């Protein structure tokens, strides 16, 4: 546990995770996300992949001096934070609106129940991740990186500085626990 902590400090620390870095990554990731989403809607054929998005963001940013000394996996690890923030913020905002938070908007229909379920699950996951972080920051970080930026096992292991087998073990347990914390929200209007 302590070895892990050290690793995080000494290892890939060149890329600061300050607000500015996150925000620029974030903007970029977001634009990509929307572009893919609208293309997918139009053509139906393009599949949206978060790892693809993050990779695209990397392609765009890699030549800028700020990212010059940063490894790809580490970049993606930081991007994961941005991605998490994007999605959680948005889900939270929609949730607020759904609960009638303010504007005199009149719903046309009961559209997008599935979407609402998705965003509730996302908020549950976010809360559970925070909880997990308190008892095992390493595993919380691992979930964040793998889930939100789509890094594969070996990339995640590289960023975190642990062996692949150890990581698989940690991943499975954390995932199972988190899944248990996510309440089922499947398309049941009115249930809470």
């Amino acid at each position, binding site marked *: 546990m302590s070895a892990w902590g050290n690793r995080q400090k000494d290892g890939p620390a060149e890329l600061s995770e300050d607000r500015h870095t996150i*925000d*620029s990554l*974030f*903007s*970029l990731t*977001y*634009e*990509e*996300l*929307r*572009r*893919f*989403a*609208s293309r997918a809607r139009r053509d139906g054929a393009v*599949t*949206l992949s*978060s790892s693809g*998005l993050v990779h695209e963001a990397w392609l*765009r940013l890699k030549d*800028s001096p700020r990212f010059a000394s940063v490894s790809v996996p580490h970049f993606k690890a930081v991007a994961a934070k941005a*991605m998490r923030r*994007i*999605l959680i*913020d*948005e*889900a939270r*905002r*929609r949730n*607020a609106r759904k609960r009638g*938070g*303010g*504007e005199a*908007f*009149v*719903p*046309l229909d009961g*559209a*997008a129940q599935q*979407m609402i379920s*998705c*965003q509730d*699950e*996302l908020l549950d*996951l976010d809360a559970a991740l925070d*909880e997990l972080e308190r*008892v*095992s920051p390493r595993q919380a970080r691992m*979930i964040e990186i793998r*889930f939100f930026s*789509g890094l594969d096992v070996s990339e995640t292991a590289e960023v975190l500085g642990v062996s692949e087998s150890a990581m698989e*073990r940690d991943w*499975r*347990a954390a*995932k*199972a*626990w*988190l*899944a*248990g914390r*996510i309440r089922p929200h499947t398309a049941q209007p009115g249930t809470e």
Partner: protein
Amino acid sequence: MDSLRWEQMQRLFHQALERPETKRNAFVADAAAGDSELATAVMRMLEADGRNSSLLDRGLDEVARQVVESSLDLAAFREFGPYRIQKVLGEGGMGVVWLAQRQDTAQVVAIKFLANAGMSPARREHFAREIKTLARLKHPFIARLYDAGSLADGTPWFAMEYVEGVRLTEYLREHRRSIRDRLQLFRSVCDAVQYAHGREIIHRDLKPSNVLVEKDGTPKLLDFGIAKQWQNTDEPSDQTRAGPRFFSRDYAAPEWADDGEAGFYTDVYSLGVMLYEVLTGALPDHGSDAPEKPSVVARKTHSAGAEKLSKAEWNDLDALCLKATQRSPAERYRSVEALLRDVDHFLKGEQLDAQPDTLGYRLRKFAARNRRAVVSASAVFTLVALLVVFFTARLAGERDRANRERAIATAMNRFLSDDLLGRADPFRSGNAGETFAQMVKQASPRIDLQFKTEPLIAARLHQTLAGAFDKRSDFPQARQEYEQAERLFRQAEGPSSQDAALLRLQRAAMEARSFEGGSLARAKSLVTDAERTIARIAKPKTELAVWLYTARGVIALSETDPRGAEQNFSAALRAASADGSFDETAREKITQLIAVSYIKRGDGARAEPLCREVIASLARTSGPGSPDVLRARIYLTQTLLVQRKFADAIEEANAIYPSLVKHLGEEHEAVLSLLGTRAAAEGSLTRWDDAIRDDLAVYRIAVKKQGPASLYSIGMLSDAALSQCEAGHYSEGEANARQAFQLSSNAFGLRAGLTGGVAYTLAFCLSKLNRLGEAAELLQNIDVSATAQQAGDPNVGADVALLQGEVAARRGDFESARHFADLAAPTLDAPSASAADKKELQTLRDTIAAPRR
């Protein structure tokens, strides 16, 4: 749950997984040994593991897509404020546009929402910029902004004019208008873009789908979503570079699509592609250096009315279109105004600017060398401004008359507080600076009244005022004050007054710097007088010797004799170092003057180490961030400029600019010098837009500080005008050049060197506008020797002759053209002339010799 508990849970979880699925729960219940909470938690984990269907297993992709589905989001709602939303009109990178109706006024509008606004401050800023941009645009051919605000959840929106029309290209296909009508329509679009450019807004995404044509044929320009304010240098460049750029590649200029660089010429390119499409119905071959001529394509596509145009007319349209779509911005029309002018030339049946001149002479190539002449002129102004700083600086070590100085200082303070400042109400509204300048002017006559019995104090006061006026380039006032001070010193101290001699030398230096007609001769005779006085003085002060050499040096600089200047400044430095009356800082300032001589000699390679030495020394004595060091770094910037290390010069200028402003304020001479130097470097790199920005910034401050008729103000206005003409903003350039010319001839006379320089600029602008007669007349009246003196460039005569020759040739007056070519020949045929210059002259000769059409 704590860490220990979590470890326990995980251990049990992994142990259970090693057992067959059916036996796991039993194992857990058993191993938990009565800890039912632990057993339940682990069983829940096992269950989730077996189901393998949580959000974490489904992956992020589906979630991400759903979360960002913005139109779905807005489709769920239909009313807000007075607006009732009707249907989606379109969706772009930044937001969704809806058709809506105001319920109170029934007005139909288009409302753009920033989708998912809460998510990124950068995106919100971007959207706010678009609103600000639109708010500044009120033009009949641009869709107007009506209203803006944000929803309670923070989603910003703005309402704009709803244009019920079809895309430009569609409109043309449907209506099959004649080429002439189509050009008129295109002209209106250019008009709108030019209007935006006049407000310094670059659209960056011009394409037919952003131009809707209403039923009555009125075009409306839309979507300033990625528009840019060109002088906005604060905007982080990665915003436009690394950030996603949503634009249509077919219409985007190469420098924008490939390098993320945009100027007004970027819009020119897009308009050019649109014109190509307007004429032919097809797009030019993308990325090709030589796209097919529109005339050829129009025949192939059976473009409406194509056959009605004559061959000559098609020739013109080919030239026009291809010039607008040149891949290199330098080859393109430099502005929409220039493009418009040619469209108008065509519509009126006049000769195009884009058509290679019938004489085969290329005006554009001429530009690079003209700028250089002015570059050295602005460098002179820069030097002048800094020399003033030096000359009014107090020298150290005047220990011998400390007591008397103290008495004078007390009296001066009294005068300053009671008389000068006491009478002015600092709280009076209006321009405080101007009020103070007027106050100082009014104070002068009162000095003599107040200090009738103390001529020495009066003399010191006049000397101080002289310095102040000198610094403002208010030479007539300064001259008066210098003279009065000198008179008073002589009255108090006798004909051999050292103070009087010193003042005479200071006045000589000022005259030498003023570049007014006859001022150099005055400076020389003043120095001769002072020399005579000094010869009579038994023990002249060191200060006097230093000033004598310095004044001689400045005269030499003004006479474009940098070698003589260097010798004199070196002598001044030796004198200053001989005894202890000058401190190190003062000596370094003299060293700087030596560096200036090298700069004037164009010997940047020798000036640069000297400047660096001065900088190092000053950094030791007064700290690396001190104003003296910063000032020395301005000289360094100039050494880089004369070494043609333009990019380095700009970089150095950018590096010192913030501290300089912090220390000295935005309006200090040193800051102006720096901006002037940067402008020169930018101009040399043909970054005209940047050069114009800096020239105009300096000009505005100079006007504020020195009034519009000062040497510096006029010089900078002239520089700005030249850059504007280079950039294709001909009418602005001409207007500014004309204003500078009138100011200069009123203030300094028609024959003054400055007036000559400005006349050259005006003539250049006029030649661009094809007003050749006027240009020729202006050039003829230039006093070449005065102008050469002012520009610090003995080759100015050749420059003027070359432009005269070019103008004459274009007017068909080949005899005069030959005469001017011969005038320029001795200078430009000399081995020392640059290859580019020789080539210019050769082109002129070829033109004269070529058989006429």
